[in-house]
């Protein structure tokens, strides 16, 4: 079985993100990028399915040069080869990302496409759904369990207050949630092996994808600093503030 997985680059979830003074983006000096945690779940799911059933895992990333390390991380976790579509964040929106990935899918013709449910920096949660729509494939988002039964895939999803189990025909699109599995850590020998695995580098233009954006980011703003609390002296003062300042009563 052939599985395509995403290896999205995200800003280090442990780093403190600072917005540029002019609001056009975030400060990138000294900032490191990591493999999106949900993509780690996707890679783990793909690699363990292939370990059990045979086949090949192909990892794809869309990003500038700094995304190479994230693609290599997916290769170190067990993907056989990588596809790096070169584009910077400002040249992308969720829709273009989905159209590029749909094109990669058409070129690769995998049996299954697993994505992270969202990227932990942009938090858009749109790409998997759009890809399934563009390709006309069955989709199961927020997968917390996956089981292959012959040529069908059972996916358990976490929904409000319970679980929902879907039975999909293949090929299909699945997006991975955090509880799907515990991603393996790349071992040192596998880090070295990943360096020698093939990576195909291309641009959206090479692939014949229309790069017009539907959504453009206008501004970035850091959350306001929270003002410290104050102590009120009387109940009357409290009621007054709740009514006239906070306007909640």
């Amino acid at each position: 079985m052939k599985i395509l997985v995403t290896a999205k680059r995200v800003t280090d979830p442990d780093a403190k993100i600072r917005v540029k003074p002019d609001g056009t983006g975030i400060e990138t000096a000294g900032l490191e990028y990591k493999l999106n945690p949900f993509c780690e779940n996707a890679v783990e799911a793909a690699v363990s399915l292939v370990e059990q059933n045979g086949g090949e895992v192909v990892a794809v990333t869309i990003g500038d040069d700094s995304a190479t390390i994230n693609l290599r991380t997916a290769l170190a976790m067990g993907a056989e080869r990588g596809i790096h579509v070169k584009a910077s964040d400002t040249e992308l929106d969720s829709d273009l990302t989905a159209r590029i990935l749909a094109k990669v899918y058409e070129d690769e013709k995998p049996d299954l496409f697993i994505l992270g449910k969202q990227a932990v920096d942009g938090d858009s949660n749109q790409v998997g759904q759009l890809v399934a729509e563009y390709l006309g494939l069955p989709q199961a988002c927020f997968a917390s369990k996956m089981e292959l039964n012959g040529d069908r895939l059972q996916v358990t999803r976490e929904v409000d207050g319970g679980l929902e189990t879907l039975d999909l025909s293949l090929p299909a699109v699945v997006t991975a949630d955090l509880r799907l599995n515990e991603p393996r850590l790349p071992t040192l020998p596998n880090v070295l092996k990943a360096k020698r695995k093939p990576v195909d580098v291309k641009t959206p233009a090479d692939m014949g994808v229309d790069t017009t954006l539907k959504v453009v980011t206008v501004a970035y703003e850091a959350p306001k600093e929270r003002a410290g609390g104050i102590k009120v002296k009387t109940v009357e003062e409290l009621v007054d503030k709740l009514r006239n300042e906070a306007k909640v009563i």
Partner: protein
Amino acid sequence: MDAFKDVDFLDLNELLTDEERMVRDSVRRFVSQKFRPHIEEYYRKGIFPAELIPEMGRMGFFGVNMQGYGCAGMSNLAYGLVSLELEAGDAGLRSVVSVQTSLAMYAILAFGSEEQKKRWLPELAAGTKVGCFGLTEPDFGSNPMGMRTKAAKTDAGYVLDGAKMWITNGTMADVAVVWAKLDGRVKGFLVERGTPGFKQIAMHHKLSFRASDTAELAFDGCEIPANAIMPESDGIKSPLSCLTQARFGVAWGALGSAMDCYNTARDYAIERKQFKDRPIASHQLVQAKLAHMLTGITTAQCLTLRVTQLKEEGRARPEHISMMKMYDTEMALDCARIARSILGANGITGEYPIMRHMCNLETTTTYEGTTDIHKLVLGKDITGVQAFY
């Protein structure tokens, strides 16, 4: 999220290759998943979780910078980063790797026969076997040349008599690299667990390195075969060259302890309020302490990275390694003591890692050559006159 974050005032991480970053991140997560949640308990009970050793082997932590025989064969910088990340957990965890890699495996690689290398290195690299290194004796620490452990030739091989003290990994070891005098000349021998006349005795009541296996090795008419001698070992230079390898990892490790102490103290200083509800971080004396710690860590990083580059080029001298080991461990101990003061009474509890790092650092400034001994090494290099005796 990950519990440990490195300190990088000068964006030194930009000097790492993608592979080195991936190694760093893997080790960091290994420590935060498998070790950090339990370290306080291990330390209190005085145990090292031996079950982690095969897992560390599978991850490729043993023999990181060594080629062949199942070793990862990565850069010295990768080995340094592994040491740093492990010691940010605990120096005991880092020591398992330093001893296995740079003392036991390196000794066998440098001085062993092909048969010995094939027999031991792949299993030591995989963590399915444990190795230790016996040089120090009850009466000879800084001056190992004075050792009394003796080897004598017999018809079937050799017989060993004597005792080694303070041996890391000593009770867990399947094979001990033992240094003994044969006709007055220091030679290395490989002694296997279970050999009659060889005892591995745990040392108790340590108040430092509690999550580390430290043992006495006793040899009483211990007969070993002729192929147990490491044929290429010759003189005190042989074990000393192993120490030069291990000190490299010890120095890198100290950066990890120092960073964990600094991070803990900085976060605490920002949270903790005293006098007029102001964070203690707003006081000049506390800021001076934090500035001192950050400067110490950053200076040590620059020294350490430069020595690492030289080592990669094959140009690092033992004196370079001495300066780095001495400076980094003393800097880390200084950081730990200052961090402890910033945490006040909380600093002495097991709820924070500082007191544990501080106690461990009393060992790291002592083993692999005390700070005094490294000053004498540098003193001799500067003046051309030895002042050891």
